[in-house]
């Protein structure tokens, strides 16, 4: 991506978010609801794609990082009391931005803590360990009375709007696209394709993997913050293993390593979720069958360029 073009896209995305926010009073609540959920899902899917798609690490713990961001940012806005819920829109939004960044930062810290020990693990083991970390975060939240334990946190000020959601989604896409489409960022794909060859090229696979985890977790944390300040209520159960699977399905459906594909899949699955809302008990059956059929018939996803990897020789 050329510099001028990427800057234009960034500004265009932010501008579009502002326009959406300005016209939002004209939109009906249902449309706004779907747009915000789609935006949050885009952030989650694109950031997980950096880890699972581009870098080839398989994380099943994205919901855990989302939880970390949701709780941390909510604690900030709840602690700042009237500043966050008061009348002054500038103060309110400044507090919100600070809270979101605090949530993202805390999630990034968690990502670092998960990333470092996970480096020695490959493929399926890494998947189970990240799942384990996600569950540990959940269990810790459940047992911490200061954050409401299993009951969760309520009364979180509703500060999320279309501008913040799509603004952050734009920044997420910009960051991941710029990272991957630079010489530095080709390293992520080198790590995915062949770690030993990457090391032989002087690439520190450790650094790339940890960076992917940290950046991925940071944006998952932002998504968590947006979610918390949209629904106004969070509980540990909101961020269970199935939430992680939801995001994984988006990444797989979109095609691991393809940002446009993953964005499309995030929107598609958000819509599908809404359409199937009245058939809740069938929703996950449809999703799981979709996953199985996709893996058998089209593992590169609907739009992806993920290469079929040969089985490791022994």
């Amino acid at each position: 991506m050329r510099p001028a073009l990427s800057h234009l896209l960034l500004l265009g995305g932010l501008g579009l978010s502002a326009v959406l926010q300005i016209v939002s009073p004209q939109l009906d609540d249902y449309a706004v609801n779907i747009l915000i959920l789609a935006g949050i899902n885009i952030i989650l899917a694109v950031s997980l794609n950096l880890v699972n798609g581009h870098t080839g690490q398989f994380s099943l713990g994205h919901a855990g990082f989302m939880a970390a961001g949701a709780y941390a940012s909510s604690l900030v806005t709840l602690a700042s009391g009237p500043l966050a819920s008061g009348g002054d829109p500038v103060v309110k939004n400044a507090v919100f931005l600070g809270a979101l960044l605090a949530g993202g930062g805390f999630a990034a810290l968690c990502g670092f803590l998960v990333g470092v020990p996970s480096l020695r693990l490959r493929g399926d083991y890494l998947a189970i360990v990240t799942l384990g970390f996600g569950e540990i975060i959940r269990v810790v939240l459940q047992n911490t009375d200061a954050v409401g334990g299993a009951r969760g946190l309520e009364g979180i000020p509703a500060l999320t709007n279309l501008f913040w959601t799509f603004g952050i989604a734009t920044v997420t896409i910009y960051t991941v696209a710029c990272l991957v489409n630079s010489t530095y960022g080709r390293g992520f794909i080198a790590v995915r394709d062949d770690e030993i060859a990457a090391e032989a090229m002087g690439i520190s696979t450790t650094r790339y993997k940890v960076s992917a985890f940290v950046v991925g977790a940071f944006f998952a944390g932002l998504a968590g913050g947006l979610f918390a300040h949209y629904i106004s209520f969070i509980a540990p159960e909101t961020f269970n293993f199935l939430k992680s699977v939801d995001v994984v399905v988006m990444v797989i459906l979109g095609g691991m390593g393809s940002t446009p594909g993953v964005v499309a899949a995030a929107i598609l699955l958000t819509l599908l979720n809404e359409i199937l809302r009245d058939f809740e008990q069938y929703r996950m059956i449809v999703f799981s069958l979709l996953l199985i059929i996709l893996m058998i018939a089209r593992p590169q996803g609907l739009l992806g360029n993920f290469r079929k990897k040969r089985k490791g020789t022994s």
Partner: protein
Amino acid sequence: MSASLLLDQVTMRFGGLVAVSGLDFIVNHGEMVGLIGPNGAGKTTVFNVITGVYKPTSGTVSLGDRVLNGLPAHRITRHGIARTFQNIRLFGSLSVFDNVRCAMIPGLRHGVTSALTRGPAHSREESRLRGEILELLAIFDMSGAADSPAEGLAYGDRRRLEIVRALATRPRLLLLDEPAAGMNPTEKSQLIELIRFIQKKFDIAVLLVEHDMKVVMGVCQRIVVLDYGKKIAEGTPEEIRRNPLVIEAYLGGEVADA
């Protein structure tokens, strides 16, 4: 010129198995050295020890006055040792251009922040690298394939790309692991020319593991022979050809005929 690569009493054990034992040898600056031996003699293990894939059980590997053993593989590459692999390991989903581009990562002056801000320094560096990569590809007649995926290349081209990619790390020493494997006689003669050309053009030392005696004898100034992880002979191609220990190790086969 002092020793470039020095192995001093290098031993590598896997559990009870001694793959390499008490190995000494040097590769001088600009020299072409062959490392030969029957199957399972420990040649590739030696490569893996030198390049940091394995950490030697004992002994020292050094390049110039810098001790390398214990360093992670990517640090060793940054100190000037590049390699190819016996079973070609390209970045299959990346283009030929990007495969070479990955070798430029350690030399980047502007890293993550510049990739994100995309300022003028970033553009300048990216276009400088682009020039260097295309130049390198042109030297090896691969410019035409720059944008094709590495996975789709013909076998000989994949071997060649691996060598180009290794050279792009700007090594002082290039390790080639069976570059002639799977090649026909014409391709092999071309390979011999290519290796000689590389050594002159880039002024580097080459350490070559190879089964094909014609290639080894045609390229190397000096040959080290391994058997069961031990060095059994070392000398010029002429000396090695006549060495009874070597002939015995190869069951009186290839060496004498080549």
